[in-house]
């Protein structure tokens, strides 16, 4: 099953994606065409949203870092998210703003001190994030700092959450980013330094993960700077295709 969060009749609602993604079925029997949907990021309000830095060795090398030995985890606030087919603002001085296609694991039940072997049993589903970074704003304090990674509407997320059972092995998925139709990122989740099971084990070792919490698992190599008007499409095999548009900040 695929579940989308949309704005419909004045409120946020969860809908089931049916008929090859063409139709959204709302509770109570209402059906709307997917092309008319106002997509929201499928994030449970209050959820803890973790993101990974340098979690693909090829991306680390590209940025001049050695392969990490412990997960480089940072956090995101609710202001950062926006839905499928939305707009992300690009500040006038952000010449180094680049997309990052990431597999997102969604936690399904409370997880505390979960073993690696059991970890995937705590993952309810998967979605896609495009976790934009703006490199001009990097500083070496709690890096990547929030000025780089927690700007309003710079983390498109969605379009929907796919049940884990429909995805199967989360470490065997091709992922890519296209800007105006040209591929700028291509990789496979098999190349993660810390895989989904390892990340659930790591985080749940010191805190309780709750249903709805999300882990953005990092991005492969391919740093491409975007401009006003660009259409950016992040695609992950068996999960979906997340579209976003870059708009110059007024």
């Amino acid at each position, binding site marked *: 099953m695929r579940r989308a969060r949309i704005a419909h009749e004045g409120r946020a609602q969860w809908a089931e994606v049916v008929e090859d993604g063409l139709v959204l079925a709302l509770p109570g029997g209402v059906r709307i065409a997917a092309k008319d949907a106002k997509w929201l990021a499928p994030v449970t309000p209050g959820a803890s949203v973790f993101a990974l830095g340098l979690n693909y060795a090829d991306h680390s090398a590209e940025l001049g870092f050695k392969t990490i030995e412990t997960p480089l985890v940072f*956090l995101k*606030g609710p202001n950062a998210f926006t839905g499928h087919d939305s707009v992300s603002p690009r500040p006038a001085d952000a010449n180094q703003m680049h997309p990052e296609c990431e597999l997102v694991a969604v936690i399904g039940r409370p997880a505390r001190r979960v073993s690696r072997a059991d970890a995937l049993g705590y993952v309810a589903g998967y979605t896609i994030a495009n976790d934009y970074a703006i490199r001009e704003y990097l*500083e070496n304090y*709690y*890096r990547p700092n929030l000025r780089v990674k927690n700007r309003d509407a710079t983390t498109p997320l969605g379009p929907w959450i796919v049940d884990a059972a429909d995805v199967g092995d989360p470490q065997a998925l091709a992922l890519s980013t296209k800007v105006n139709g040209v591929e700028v990122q291509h990789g496979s989740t098999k190349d993660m330094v810390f895989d989904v099971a390892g990340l659930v084990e790591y985080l749940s070792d010191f*805190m309780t993960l709750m249903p709805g919490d999300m882990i953005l698992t990092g991005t492969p190599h391919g740093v491409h700077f975007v401009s006003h008007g660009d259409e950016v499409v992040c695609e992950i095999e068996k999960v979906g295709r997340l579209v976003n548009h870059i708009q110059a900040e007024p």
Partner: protein
Amino acid sequence: MIAGAAYGVALNDRNLLSSHQQAFAEAPYKAPPKAPVLYIKTRNCLTTGGAPVLTDLKAVQAAATIGVLFARDLTRASPGEVRAAIGAVCLALDVSEPSDSYYRPAIRQQCRDGFLPLGALTALPSTFEDIVTQIDGKEVHRWSLDRLVRPLETAASEISAFMTLQAGDLLLLGLAADAPTAQPGQTVTVSSRGLPVLTTAIVPEAGR
């Protein structure tokens, strides 16, 4: 109510910046911080009503501060516009595993369950008084928010230049460089004249 995120302003104590002046000029920092540095306390950290802090650590940093709750969104605001966006304030005990590294986000140190006990929310006072920490009834720390590099109005304004502080978000104003440590078995009380007192016990967590 606190419906959004809990952000904290890091490196906001003048004493910390002066004691780390040399270190922050060197690797891995290479330059002193320019924009406000923030950290996030995840939802699992937040407790109210005097819930105990359970931990398997030998000691925790117990940093008393003040949190402000936004009642309106604050985006690209001037310092003069900040106070009108704040709906309430509370005392907060920002608990963490002691660490003197600021290079990478310190999620493991800062985001454990129950590591942000909060006092009751009350109206924003005209000025903040000294924040006093007692352990087992004895005063161990006292500090004034006059030490902040960026006081409330400046911090919120500069943060709002790059992200919206949303209605429902909590902003912790800063941590004292010399915040005390507390050990399991001890009780920590935070007070500041005019604000509801916060008391929490540090309790050993059952072993694995």
